[in-house]
């Protein structure tokens, strides 16, 4: 795997993304600056890590979407290349219309950092075999919202990748940490469900010292999907 990491000014979660891709996938990593217009030719995975691009003072991800590299990411994604946007990376993908809907301020109004559980829903290249994953969240604006029509389409096209749930895999008001519509934690996009936007941080749950390794399952699934014929 050759993974391109695209940090924007204000991105701050690239170290753990690089570590996870190296540790889990043995990936070769290239950092691609936001000012670039092209991705390296042999890249087969693009990661937009978390953080606060440009401080997120306007709206999370709203300025990053105008960066030159975003057009190259769009082209890569439209051709079916694997793109993972985590947290602020998810927000950027939404702002850039690569994924639908919007990510709003958490319903309780606070930034929230802790472990939660997600349940795998519709399958795609990032979906692990495991039904329930324990992953950490760390965000203030992660409440997914979309209109009824979009929600229907997401369900119909099988694009809901992960829902917030409890340890047993049951969704409930209590298990939804931010008030996301239909407990959506992660969404698939792109022609082959090759884009994944995810609020929880799988890259921060890949080594034993993280308190669990469920996040590694997601990276391994992506690696396997690249190897599949």
């Amino acid at each position: 795997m050759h993974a391109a990491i695209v940090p924007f000014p204000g991105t701050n979660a690239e170290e753990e993304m690089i570590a996870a891709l190296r540790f889990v996938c043995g990936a070769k990593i290239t950092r691609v600056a936001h000012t670039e217009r092209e991705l390296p030719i042999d890249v087969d995975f693009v990661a937009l890590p978390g953080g606060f691009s440009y401080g997120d003072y306007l709206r999370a991800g709203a300025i990053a979407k105008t960066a030159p590299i975003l057009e190259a990411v769009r082209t890569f994604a439209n051709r079916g290349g694997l793109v993972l946007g985590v947290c602020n990376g998810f927000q950027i993908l939404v702002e850039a219309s690569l994924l639908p809907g919007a990510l709003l301020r958490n319903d309780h109004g606070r930034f929230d950092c802790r472990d939660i559980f997600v349940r795998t829903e519709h399958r795609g290249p990032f979906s692990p075999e495991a039904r329930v994953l324990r992953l950490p969240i760390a965000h203030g604006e992660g409440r997914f919202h979309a209109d009824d029509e979009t929600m229907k389409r997401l369900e119909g096209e099988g694009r809901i990748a992960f829902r917030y749930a409890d340890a047993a895999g049951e969704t409930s008001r209590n298990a939804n940490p931010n008030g996301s519509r239909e407990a959506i934690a992660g969404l698939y996009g792109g022609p082959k469900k090759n884009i994944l936007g995810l609020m929880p941080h799988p890259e921060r749950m890949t080594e034993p010292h993280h308190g669990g390794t469920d996040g590694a399952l997601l990276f391994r699934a992506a690696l396997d999907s690249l190897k599949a014929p």
Partner: protein
Amino acid sequence: MVAAESRLDVDDVLLSRLKITRAEYARIVDLLGRAPNLVELGAFSAMWSEHCSYKSSRLHLERLPSEGKSVLQGPGENAGAIDIGDGFAVVFKIESHNHPSFIEPKQGAATGLGGILRDIFAMGARPVATLDSLRFGSEKHPRTRALLHGVVRGIGGYGNAFGVPNVGGEVQFDARYDGNILVNAFACGVIESDRLVFGRASGVGNAILTLGAKTGRDGIHGATMASDSFGKGKSAARGAIQVGDPFRGKMLMEACLELRSLGLALGIQDMGAAGLTSSSVEMGARSKTGIDIDLDLVPRRAKAMSPLELLLSESQERMLLVVRPELVEKVVAVATKWELDCATVGRVTDTTRWVIRATQGYDPLSPSPIARDAQIVCDLPLRALTEDAPRYERPMRVPSPSSTIAPRTAPPPLAVLCERAFRLLRQPNVGSKAWVYRQYDQIVRGGTVQRPGCSAGVIRVPCERDGVAFEKFLAFSVDGNGRFVDLDAHAGSAMAVAEATRNLVVAGARPIGLTDGLNFGSPENPETMFALSQCIDGIAEACGALAIPVVSGNVSLYNETDGRPILPTPIVAAVGLVDDIANVTTPSWKNEGDIIVLLGAGAWDGLRGSEYEALFSTGAQELPVIDLTAERALQDFVRAEIKRGSLVSANDVADGGLLTTLLEGSLLRDEHASPFGAAVELPNEDLEAFLFGESSSRIVVSVAPAQFDHLLARARSGDVLLRVLGHVTTDDTVRLTHEKASATISVALARSAHANAFAELG
């Protein structure tokens, strides 16, 4: 002196606004041999403020031990530094931002964190962890909730965006902080030990540059405000509050780290309190050179700024650099890459003077600026602003013993004590602080091994040197309890050092150094001054006994409102090194049947000043005492046992006392894992003191039955008291037996009480 007196034609109103006393003014005139002009007087006001000069505390601070074979940098720089081996060092410091946080909690706390982070990366080190220590008034005070929310939002808002994990902290509520909250922030960075950058203006002819944000009118006279108390008839001083910009702060960090790795900056200094004035003065004074700055060249964002405003602005996210002239262009290129302003504003001279020039009325932002013709507006010996600042040996008075207390009440039966344990767990001072730390990113960068909520935060730091990659594990704890310091400043302060280091030890670390934040009322109050002096002696004694140096610190005085001082509050942040990740130990029970053991013994009953006493007033009389020899033996023993692998869990006994610690064995376990309980037999002694006293030097551990006899033998030879309390069970209860009585505490109910400690404040 007489000659100087005759020239005292300055008016009292001005002096009082600048917080310069008549005697200090006379000293200035004496040092200069003339009267200062208004700009110069403003510079003196800032540099001679308590905040910058430490004039009331300096004589006492000299008693703190700051040396050790691993110490690379002690107090006096942006931060202290300690060698951690293999060519790496930690750089750390704690700093207060109390006054600004009380006036504007969100921005005050945010810029407090921003300031301490800048201190760390000014030394060239990348920040890897932060902690925070907070004090608020009573939960019932009408402002407490808003202050808490604002401060936590400020720390989170800055730290989360900046991208450094918050791995621990403490928060305490007490009515004696009603009129003056405390916000102390700690940061630690890591750097190659031979690449530290210092805040020095070396090399005559070198250029002085500003880097970062443009200079505005925010924060003017912040240092002077921070050296004043609150009270009726005093303005809220809102204009003196700065606004933080974590995005630019992060860009500034990346730029500084790049400058360091390219070897482009000879000196870097944070432009914190008293802005351009203190940063340039300190750089010049440390290297015994001179400074010549032209204010016309300072990038600014406000129109028509006066020379004094430019000198004293505390606009955030700015650094002062000293650069060889031939490298200035490269420095500007780095600044441009990170979208930061950068301008040459002066040069290093050999005059040992601080010379400031400006063109009267020049404003580069005006549509038609007048022609520049900079004249000297300030010409002062650097010494006069620094070494020659007053040092006060302020009068001290032993406080009069507090009025008689009601006699000790008869202890209630065991069942009532168990009920009281629930009340304690529900207190924000004892229960879970998750409401606070969940608002902080504790895991950014992926290195957090032990998140907040346990004894100490532990992180993994990937290091690479000469092509060899390896890992370092660091542990952090921040502690202090003003209630004990109020009862006995010497013992209470020594206890803060003991607790912070003990917390590292139980987590599996070896304490290597600490930084102290001393928060007190007015030094002009002889009783406060006595407490400050006793506090420093207590810290010094504990550091001596535990062989740990103080490498940086901060003193915040005048924490009072209308003459009512806060609890005297020294905060100690300790840093430890974990040799092997396998040594990282947690407080929670792990196996059924493990023996629960209390190691060490308190030197007093621990009730006065405890949270239990605050809730149930038993009338306990004993004053805090700590036996540092026993503390040292305890810490050495537990450290060795953890290394040997004989301890399954370890937890310090602190807030809420022993029963809280025992409950934590169950409560701090992952809530999704199967629950564990405990069966405990209580000794035939004063149960209130035994269960709820907060005396130092005690650690609860659990140990496998097969290991117990060996542990007992080694404890005896190590002079550590060992007492079996009971064993770990798979029940969802903690069962207490005392003679013929027994009582049961439901872990599920205790968990709910503990988890909801902030329910009313949140």
